[in-house]
């Protein structure tokens, strides 16, 4: 389904969700928890916000899947690269 034919999504609700998630991020970053939980929680919130923008503001929810594959396939390759180099750094600084 193309973005030309779908009804407008509720942009107001998406905006409020993004605002609430940003506030939640700032608050959560100051919660006295172990670093690993802070990092995981913040990454989860950031990915959630990014997904909302991509799905609704960039209309990927209503587009052909191929567009998402074209746009975000390099992300997979980059993550592999980061993990491989990161593993090497751990080898240097065990």
């Amino acid at each position, binding site marked *: 389904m*193309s*973005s*030309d034919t779908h009804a*407008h999504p509720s*942009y*107001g609700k*998406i*905006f409020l969700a*993004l*605002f609430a998630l*940003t506030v939640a*991020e*700032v608050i959560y*970053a100051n919660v006295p928890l172990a670093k690993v939980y*802070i*990092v995981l929680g*913040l*990454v989860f*919130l*950031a990915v959630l*916000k*990014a997904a909302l*923008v*991509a799905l*609704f*503001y*960039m209309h990927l929810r209503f*587009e*052909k899947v*191929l*567009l998402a594959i*074209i*746009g*975000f*396939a*390099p*992300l997979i*390759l*980059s*993550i592999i*690269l*980061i993990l491989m*180099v*990161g593993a090497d*750094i*751990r080898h*240097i*600084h065990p």
Partner: protein
Amino acid sequence: MISPVMSQSTAPSYDLGNLGIETRKLGMWAFLASEVMFFTGLIGAYIVLRQAQPSWPLPSTILNIPLTAVNTFILICSSATLVKGLASAKDGDKEGMQVGLFLTFLLGALFLAIQMHEYDELLHGRGLTPSGNIFGTCFFTLTGFHGMHVFIGVLCMLFVFIKSLRGGYSPAEYRGIEIVGLYWHFVDLVWIILFTILYLI
């Protein structure tokens, strides 16, 4: 140049490629794919450098988190005003479209102004420079390249706003706003990630 196949109907009908996707939109997504590689390369380098540096400073002790949270909110607002502008263009609401595009331009410029103020504060107030230490190098490289993208987006937004004032868009022809919008939302998406990894973690 690809022109829309106009008909008596107000519904737009564009030239579609073999993939069934309008060619300008496909082109923008291919460009965004290269941008994904660009930014993930930079973010990847930041993560690796941070891992390699045992004494990485806590960002909240150097950076102004409340100010940047406000700036993040401004960029989110700009994405919202842009989708409203696009929706108005599709609905034939000329005034709504122009207001949406102008507000997006204004909010983008405000984001840049606040970023410049932040840079001034860091460079002259706190002594954080791009060449001072690895934290400063990473910070200014990532936020600088993002800011450059916002600047280009602001110029594009000014272009589509002026075009909208001249009657360049209608319910049958709004693709220009949508294509620029994809770029703008992508820049917003990148900032969402940068705000988390640079400022909060």
